[in-house]
């Protein structure tokens, strides 16, 4: 006797998602083409001023984004094992770094078996430490292991709550100017300031469009499953300065507006019982389980702070404003108090009833924000919060049982709060 397993039909992807996939494939294809021609190709941290290489027309790929993609496909473990074993990296460092350092060591071997999306061997690195300081150490290691130069933007942590002081912005601006000069030498090309202005304008159009899209999810019920936003972040990471991103976001906006008009949602047919703010990076290898479990309890994580990290806002043509924007872009570039003020505002704007915090083993700073910030959220936003342990790439940290138990606890409090309001 054999059981017949029911095969669920794959959900058809919306056009905007197909466009994202095509754009991503194009980015990798261009990088490989440049690599095969012996032209410069860079690996870049996720919030480096991409406007520079976009203006030079030199392709970049992004290890953090790549690690997330590979982890979501559950293909990261062999690279992480290689980094921890053969390469001796301790288990406590960021898992994106372990995955990528392991991969960087593998891809220089002739005939290595590619894991898609595969990045070509870089000839230079672009480093901005606005997300964290581990990036500096990670890229130092890449530079040492691959013997290639780094273009570095030291973005300075905003340890106080005030606006960045003028001397900080001056230092950032100076680095932008110096990096442009250094790139001119390495790429053997003059920097085209007119094209730069156009790239800046395009970057601003794209970030504004994405903000508008995110804001649409403030409607009740939401037109989107909040996790969908993770799928479109890559456009801002890989192609913030490209017209193709504008086309994708315009299409996505049309799709969401259609949902609003039709009273439908990408969250599906399950009623949205609870609206929750997600704090932290996704558990990429466990995304499917998280989503399924959240749906089981009618929870929609309508908003998360991570997707706003690429809101690099400045006036095109204003280099000083751009310098300041890169200093202030990432969630991790501010003190907990500043971050939690932002979260309180978005919790209110999106009508969140609880906060679900990912204690991400790989991201110390976000975890510090959670530990220090949960009292602030409960006091200022007056909503309950809960934590669960996980990781962005390392599958050994996350526990399905703990995630569900913690979620159940949060749901019970949110339910009691709702009933008390009645």
């Amino acid at each position, binding site marked *: 006797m054999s059981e017949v397993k029911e095969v669920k039909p794959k959900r058809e992807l919306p056009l905007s998602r197909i466009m994202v996939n095509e754009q991503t494939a194009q980015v990798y294809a261009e990088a490989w083409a440049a690599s095969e021609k012996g032209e410069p190709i860079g690996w870049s941290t996720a919030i480096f001023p991409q406007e520079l290489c976009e203006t030079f027309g030199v392709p970049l790929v992004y290890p953090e984004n790549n690690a997330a993609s590979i982890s979501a496909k559950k293909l990261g473990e062999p690279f992480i094992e290689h980094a921890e074993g053969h390469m001796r990296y301790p288990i406590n460092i960021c898992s994106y770094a372990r995955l990528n350092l392991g991969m960087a060591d593998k891809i220089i071997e002739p005939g290595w078996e590619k894991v898609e999306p595969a990045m070509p061997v870089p000839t230079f690195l672009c480093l901005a430490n606005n997300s964290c300081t581990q990036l500096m150490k990670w890229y130092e290691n890449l530079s040492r292991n691959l013997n290639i130069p780094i273009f570095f933007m030291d973005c300075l942590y905003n340890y106080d709550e005030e606006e960045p002081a003028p001397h900080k912005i001056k230092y950032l601006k100076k680095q932008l100017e110096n990096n442009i000069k250094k790139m001119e030498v390495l790429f053997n090309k003059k920097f085209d300031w007119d094209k730069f202005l156009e790239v800046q304008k395009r970057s601003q159009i794209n970030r504004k469009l994405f903000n508008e899209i995110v804001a649409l999810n403030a409607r009740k019920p939401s037109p989107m499953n909040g996790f969908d936003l993770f799928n479109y972040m890559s456009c801002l990471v890989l192609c913030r300065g490209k017209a193709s991103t504008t086309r994708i976001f315009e299409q996505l906006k049309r799709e969401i507006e259609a949902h609003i008009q039709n009273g439908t949602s990408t969250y599906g047919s399950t009623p949205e019982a609870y609206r929750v703010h997600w704090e932290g990076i996704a558990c990429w290898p466990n995304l499917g389980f998280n989503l399924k479990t959240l749906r089981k309890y009618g929870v929609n994580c309508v908003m998360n702070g991570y997707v706003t990290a690429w809101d690099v806002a400045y006036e095109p043509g204003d280099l000083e404003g751009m310098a300041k924007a890169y200093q202030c872009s990432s969630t991790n570039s501010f003190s907990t108090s500043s971050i939690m003020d932002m979260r309180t505002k978005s919790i209110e704007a999106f009508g969140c009833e609880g906060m679900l915090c990912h204690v991400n083993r790989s991201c110390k*700073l976000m975890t510090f924000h959670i530990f220090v910030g949960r009292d602030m959220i409960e006091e200022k936003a007056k909503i309950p919060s809960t934590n669960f342990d996980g990781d962005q790439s390392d599958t050994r940290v996350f526990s399905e049982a703990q995630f569900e138990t913690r979620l159940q606890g949060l749901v019970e409090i949110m339910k009691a709060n709702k009933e008390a309001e009645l």
Partner: protein
Amino acid sequence: MKKIETLLDRFAFVANKPSAVMKVYLEEGKKIVGCFPVYTPQPLITASGMIPMGIWGGQITPTVAGKYNPIFTCSIMRSCLEYGMTGVYKGMSAVMMPMLCDTFRGMSSSWRAGVKEIPLIAFIHPQNRLDSGALDFMIEEYKSVLKRLEALSGVQVTNASLNAAIDLYNRKNAVMQTFNEVANDHLDIITPTVRHHVMKSATFLEVSETIQLVGELIALLKAQPIHKWTGHKLILTGITAEPEALLSLFEENKIAVVGDDLAQESRQYRTAYPAGEMAFERLASQWLNIKGCSMAYEEDSQSRGKMLVDMAKKQDADCIAVCLMRFCDVEEYDYPYISKATENAGLYSLCLEIDQSTQDNGQSRTKIQSYAEMAASLV
């Protein structure tokens, strides 16, 4: 010899009881600024008429710090927060914290949430140190730190008074380096534990007192006959090499420490403040000149490995021991290449895990014993 023993007792006392030292300073009416590790601009504190004291936590299992620190915070920061939250640092006028790693970034918020009665003076070093804007930035950052110190002390710092303080710290740096050299001629007296006491006490004592006491010790040691050490010799690298029980394992196995690159010890003394007229420029330039440190970004990414191997060869050491503080990212990223550079140079590489929240040195004992046995078999 009696005089040496008296001095060494003093160093041991200061290293193990910094709170008693702080109490005396407070009773003398002095103001104290706690300095988180590492590279705090201490001449600014001295010029402001206050005393900088190192903050290095302690060998404890924290009970309250977990409220604001994740479990995967390095133990030194957890114990520092624990001490802050439980009143051990009470009496300090402020603490100064450099944003050198992610844990410091997070700790700045943890401190503000958990230790409300001791104000935090946070500041950040420029990491793109070869960039032409780095020096100006560092100068301005230190100026903003000084404003806060002046407000605490009520002392107006001038270019001349800051230059005098910088000169004093250059003397301290020089005296600590001389001690390192002289100690290697007297490894029977300057055991790993004694060496650690001298180095650690220098982070707590007033700068002038350190210069005087370590200077006296150097003079007394020089008067002793040179001792021919027949045991093994090694170099320590990392943040700290504690607890003392770990150091006594070296002693049990006839291993001498003949040099170090520990953040708590020599790493902070090996870069002099350059000469010059403009005090802030001297102060800021020192940061730009630091080499071979896990916390300072460097374009020469081989710098620390080369430096350690050179140090070992110069001192005739056959081993470099990485004292790897658990959850210290910056050190953990450097570990693979340091250990490989060590082995490539034909030296032994030891990795000893450092964790202030445990007294268990079992693993370290086994590693140290096996190194001693292997090295002995080749003699």
